[in-house]
């Protein structure tokens, strides 16, 4: 190898062009990757902000199996009375009207009893603002 070479000759002699191309490629690749990473950063931040929604981080909800409702003899009697009153109304009846009838009829604790019947699914919502008697549940729990 010649000892005293300078300028372009030296670059040619010691693979300078190849080294500079490799260097430029490395730098540009790094810059492209960096810009791609920055452009996607908002997605990572969104994920972090909504991490509670991710199933990976979501705490397991406690088991929500409903405890079977049991009615006391007094509640069963009140349920029968409520059923009789509900039958005087239309199939899809108004809950406030039923409650009013129960109060007039002198049923014990009409409010709490009504809440109990709703909890026991003996009276269920028709999702239109009215309620219906669930006879299957009534027979299971009361009869």
């Amino acid at each position, binding site marked *: 190898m010649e000892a005293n070479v300078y300028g372009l000759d030296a670059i040619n002699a010691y693979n300078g062009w190849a080294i500079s191309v490799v260097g430029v490629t490395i730098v540009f690749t790094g810059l492209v990757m960096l810009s791609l990473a920055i452009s996607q950063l908002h997605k990572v931040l969104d994920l972090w902000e909504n991490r509670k929604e991710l199933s990976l981080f979501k705490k397991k909800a406690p088991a929500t199996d409903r405890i079977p409702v049991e009615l006391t003899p007094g509640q069963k009697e009140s349920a029968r009375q409520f059923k009789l009153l509900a039958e005087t109304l239309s199939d899809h009846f*108004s809950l406030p009207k039923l409650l009013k009838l129960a109060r007039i009829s002198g049923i014990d604790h009409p*409010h709490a009893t009504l809440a109990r019947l*709703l909890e026991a699914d003996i009276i269920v919502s028709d999702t*239109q*603002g*009215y309620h219906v008697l669930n006879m299957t549940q009534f027979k299971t729990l009361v009869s």
Partner: protein
Amino acid sequence: MKRAINILKKSELFKSIEEKDLGAMGQVLEQRSVQEGEILATQGDTATFFFVLKTGTILVALNDGKSALVNTTGDFIGLELLSSKGIYISTLTALTPCEIVVIPRDTFLEFIQDNSSAAATFMQAWSSYRSRTFPFLTEQDTPNMDYHY
């Protein structure tokens, strides 16, 4: 006050609102115990309070005999479900003993007006909550309700 705010934070409507924003309203929040059969609001009366449920079951009686039950901690009873133009449009009756947080209506409306970002968050949550919990509540039931809560 802190306890009342904690109850609000359990509500799906208020949970997205910053605690400092809730704190502004928190000064006037009040917790109240309600007895079985007690009437919290009567249709036609001047609307003075909105309510957030802590425990118990409340019957919301609307027009035409329609009604809804509110029985989940954090459930909010207010806006067009309860009042229009300062008048209660539904009657609230406690079916069981209840613990509630009482929010003065004027304070709540001021909060909505003064905190635009919090208000937007709240109204979005309310719209979703309303259509899910009270699907039968149509515009027909609550005419001309915009900005007249």
